[in-house]
């Protein structure tokens, strides 16, 4: 394939990765922004979303569309509830102390991972996409007869991959509307800005924390349900999304949702493109290098507030 169509293919793959990464990183950023908790178990909530999607689709039977729709709704909901319970059982007990919550979520990471290994097993298992029509994509050239479209062999995507991108965009719009236009969004932002003053105005901060921790985990799980028909559900699949989410959140600026979205698109796209042209390992190396440079030259991230 020529370079142009090859690049377009790589960008499409990157966009799919960026879409899933945006949802996952948004969850991590939301949790850090509002609660000041570095959730090391975030990748395991992602993994749980994928594993639950496999379980739900296996249990239901019937058409792939119904199975997948059920997984898309139920898996994030269940993971969100589990995270809310973890908040109540663990994080509240350590008073959301920044250092102790890191240790606590490391423990949570291993508990979720090992329980999944014991119950789900070590195998990678696929989930059927609800639809998967192959769509050929055109390219253009300027020949002797001027501008002309043609259909290069291998330049194609699937309807499901386009759905992943669309679902991520719709979810982002939903989160934005929730934060900017609703009463609960106002309460979340007030808690993020000053939790003590928020309490002095009747906001039950601990309940808000449980809600946010659940929402963050549900966003990660949603990303995983979307990706599991493209990849496969596996008990160790949480490590990469966790690393990439941290990279995104640091580059975007801790707690900045706008920065998280921009950085996720940047990292997801570059990860996809470099993986197609070179290797996925090189993509991770470059992303980690970028984080190091951001930490040295702009520690508050691209959109984070400069410390006073």
């Amino acid at each position, binding site marked *: 394939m020529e370079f142009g169509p090859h690049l377009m293919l790589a960008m499409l793959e990157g966009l799919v990765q960026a879409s899933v990464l945006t949802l996952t990183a948004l969850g991590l950023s939301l949790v850090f922004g509002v609660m000041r908790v570095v959730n090391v178990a975030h990748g395991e909530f992602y993994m749980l979303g994928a594993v639950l999607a496999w379980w739900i689709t296996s249990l239901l039977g019937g058409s792939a569309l119904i199975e997948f729709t059920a997984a898309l709704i139920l898996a994030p909901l269940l993971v969100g509830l589990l995270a809310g319970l973890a908040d109540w059982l663990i994080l509240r007990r350590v008073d959301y102390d920044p250092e102790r919550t890191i240790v606590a979520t490391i423990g949570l990471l291993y508990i979720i991972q090992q329980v999944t290994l014991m119950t789900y097993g070590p195998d990678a298992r696929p989930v059927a996409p609800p639809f998967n029509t192959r769509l050929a994509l055109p390219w253009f050239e300027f020949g002797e007869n001027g501008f002309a479209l043609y259909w290069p062999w291998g330049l194609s995507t699937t309807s499901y991959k386009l759905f992943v991108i669309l679902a991520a965009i719709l979810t982002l719009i939903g989160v934005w509307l929730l934060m900017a236009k609703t009463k609960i969004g106002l309460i979340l*932002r*007030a808690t993020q800005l000053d939790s*003590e*003053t928020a309490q*002095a105005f*009747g906001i039950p*901060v601990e309940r808000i924390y449980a809600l946010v921790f659940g929402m963050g985990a549900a966003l990660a799980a949603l990303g995983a349900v979307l990706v599991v028909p493209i990849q496969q559900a596996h008990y160790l699949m949480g490590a990469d999304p966790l690393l990439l989410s941290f990279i995104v959140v640091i580059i975007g600026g801790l707690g900045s949702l706008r920065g998280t979205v921009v950085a996720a698109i940047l990292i997801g796209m570059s990860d996809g493109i470099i993986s197609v042209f070179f290797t996925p390992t090189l993509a991770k190396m470059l992303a980690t290098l970028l984080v190091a440079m951001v930490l040295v030259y702009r520690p508050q991230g691209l959109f984070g507030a400069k410390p006073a």
Partner: protein
Amino acid sequence: MLKLTDINASYGKVQVLRDLSLEAKAGEILCLLGRNGAGKTTVMKTIMGLVPMTSGSLQLEAHEISGLPAYRVPKLGIGYIPQGRRLFSEMTVGENLQIGLMTRGKGADVREHVLGMFPLLRERLDQRAETLSGGEQQMLATARALCLEPKVLLLDEPTEGLQPSMISLIRDVVVRLKEQGVAIILVEQRVDAVLEVADKITFVENGRSAMTVTPAELKADSSLLQRFVGV
């Protein structure tokens, strides 16, 4: 209205209030005076449930409210204007007021009433709180607390860093609230401001309520200021 009896409170293992007692009645302004670090702000935070009490009694209208979660305290009608204003800085003026209104489920009529007291805020409703001047921020902090239609209002150094015209505006609002029957507890460093508005003055020393006097008694004995405030 609000009565504190033998309150003890701690930040972790450090005890900051020791058997502190005071009372603010309806339509009365009680001022707290004391040196920096004496525990005046901690009194406010303890009333709001933000610093846990270890013992003692805290009563609002003869009902015990100690031990309530912090978020339930303002719902009972206790408004708080913290030191340094503590606005939700990245939110707009309108959103800050909305948070105040939501506290006790107040509606547009209360919002209009409060904006009537601070007309300048009406022109700034869509402006972010952090972009307001110091005086405007104090207006907003006061307006936000008034959105609760409080029975008791706690003001922690409301005139800090303000120009004289703004100080007199805040004073007028405080006096008007007192006339409406609101019990007010005021922490203030400016003794002249205290003498102008206070009904009672309690000196706080090392976390204790050392003495309560009237403004007339304070004027008559200037050694009290030297002893408890160091001026």
